[in-house]
């Protein structure tokens, strides 16, 4: 009974007693949720257009951030370095299309998935060879990202808002909005949705698959760059950052593999659920539950709705 009280009653009593702590936790969850969503977005873009589950998205985040810092350290002005990094991501997208995707066209999903594993290893080795394995500071100041904190009084208690977090939420939302408009209103966006529906049909109306793949990998690279800057500003840039890519998986599951709104909603659910779970229920079992909580949430959700919140209904035919 005691354990039931501790699990079912006490956390909620605590939430009610200190609503400002709850708001603080929710805010932190919201920010990390937006950042998870940003990484998940990179996955969704590529999965939609090519059916490839891109495991290398995590290392692309690290690689983009490291390239930016590396260029800046060479004495290139920050914003020029940003442009150059985008250029590097374009070259990477073209190389991936030419060297990995094109020879592997029409292979089963798992083979393409494994190929992105190979890409991950390749990029880890290349990144460490060029930039060294030691963690680096993100060039927050040079990019005019705001720093410092504001304290707001909410529900009778102070809530600390990091300016960087606010900026991250705004930039990520803007990025998502731009992508949404790009994919629904522009010519390339329409072509991309056609490819997502059916490769064959898209090819038969004259859409170049190769070109579309370069574009989505480039878009995923840009998303990775933004995610790298934001995550890097929060926790430094190192190769251990690629583990956050795995955090994007439950986000995808919740939202559905092919849905951009799903990635956002899933990201928010995972981010907030994780923070609340860790803060209120974590101490009961010794903490650290945020390493697996998101997966368990996603797993339980899957049993109820296998295609995710916004995913396409899975129809099977014989």
């Amino acid at each position: 009974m005691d354990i039931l009280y501790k699990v079912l009653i006490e956390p909620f009593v605590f939430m009610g007693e200190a609503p400002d702590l709850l708001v603080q936790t929710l805010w932190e969850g919201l920010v990390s949720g937006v950042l998870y969503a940003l990484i998940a977005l990179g996955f969704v873009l590529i999965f939609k257009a090519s059916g490839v589950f891109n495991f290398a998205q995590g290392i692309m985040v690290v690689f983009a951030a490291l390239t930016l810092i590396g260029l800046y350290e060479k004495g290139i002005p920050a914003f020029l370095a940003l442009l150059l990094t985008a250029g590097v991501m374009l070259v990477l997208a073209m190389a991936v299309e030419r060297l990995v995707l094109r020879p592997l066209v029409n292979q089963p999903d798992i083979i393409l998935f494994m190929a992105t594993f190979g890409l991950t290893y390749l990029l880890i080795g290349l990144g460490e060879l060029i930039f060294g394995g030691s963690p680096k500071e993100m060039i927050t100041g040079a990019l005019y990202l705001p720093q410092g904190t504001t304290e707001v009084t909410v529900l009778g208690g102070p809530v600390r808002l990091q300016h960087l977090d606010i900026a991250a939420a705004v930039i990520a939302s803007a990025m998502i909005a731009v992508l949404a408009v790009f994919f629904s209103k522009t010519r390339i966006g329409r072509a991309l949705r056609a490819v997502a529906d059916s490769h064959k049909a898209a090819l038969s109306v004259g859409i170049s698959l190769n070109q579309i793949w370069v574009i989505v990998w480039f878009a995923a690279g840009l998303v990775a760059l933004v995610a790298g800057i934001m995550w890097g500003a929060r926790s430094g840039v190192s190769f251990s950052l690629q583990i956050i890519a795995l955090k994007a998986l439950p986000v995808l599951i919740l939202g559905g593999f092919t849905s951009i709104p799903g990635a956002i909603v899933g990201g928010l659910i995972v981010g907030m659920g994780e923070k609340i779970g860790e803060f209120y229920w974590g101490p009961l079992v010794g903490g650290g539950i945020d390493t697996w909580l998101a997966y368990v949430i996603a797993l339980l959700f899957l049993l109820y709705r296998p295609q995710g919140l916004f995913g396409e209904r899975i129809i099977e035919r014989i």
Partner: protein
Amino acid sequence: MLYREAGQFKTTYASDMAVFRLREDRIGLAVIIAAAYAAAFLGSDFLLQAVLIPFLVFSLAAIGLNILTGYAGQLSLGTGAFMGVGAYACYKLMTAFPEVNVIVWVLVSGFFSAAVGALFGLPSLRIKGFYLAVATLAAQFFLQWCFIRVPWLVNYNVSGALDAPLRTLFGIPVVGATATPQTRYLVVLTLVIALTWLASNLVRGRIGRMWIAVRDMDLAAELMGIRLLQTKLLAFAVSSYYCGVAGALMVFLWYGGAEYDVFNINQSFFILFMVIIGGLGSLVGSFFGAALIFIMPIALGVVLPVVLSPFGLSVGAETIEHLRFMIVGALIILFLIVEPHGLARLWQIGKQKLLVWPFPY
């Protein structure tokens, strides 16, 4: 002219369906097994300890994952955690009942892993493919968290690590600091051969054919009267059993002690590489994959400095490590492009060519 099918007539159905239909194959296998046992007495301790024992352990784990992914078609990224369950179960059993033969506990610990594997295989009826991969990732992270947070698993050991207690077999130490690489290698080799033999019969029999039917088309399999849930759960259980035994062998007969960290997600990926590179749905492929993925980086560490030195490039150990990563990554991609069916397929083609040699067709 060594490899001839001509003249070997099959007079019974059993002989026609045997694993090794050709006399040459049977002789070849006997030679390989004899050589493997001879290596225990001829090879150096380094060869046994750093190359052959881990190769066998990884082969066993790869067979485990291959049963699940290659034969039953269920993707799993939780192999490392299932290996961990085997290792921790083996540790608890060994320390709780020290008088029982250690080999018994190594084999029994696999059943704990099988139970946990089947539990995490439960969602496989509802979900499949990459979605299922997330379920197995949940197992990976949850179990790894348990290894850290539950001190009971390591008998409240302060260091939180598994250490191999001294255990003997017929009076010869096989587990613990005093066990020689030679005896450990012989034990591992015997177990791996026995379990491989078991697996090869399993996958060719009724159960294996059910797995393959489910892999190829689960709906059609269901219409044919195969119970999907039982079949999939059995695949998870058997696969986890092999992984659990491999984990126990890895900790107690290879490392001699380990921390929770050896069962991390990279271990799972590592074994998935072996299965894919070796060949999905092929037992011999599991051995090839383990050899390539495990031995190749060691070989590269030896070869790279020699190759690069004539160009005046003196490379540090760190650079070699990075190059290794790159080369492994590039090789994975290259293999997938050149031979998506893995090394096992190359082996098959090679044998086919030998049968008709010296004619091309």
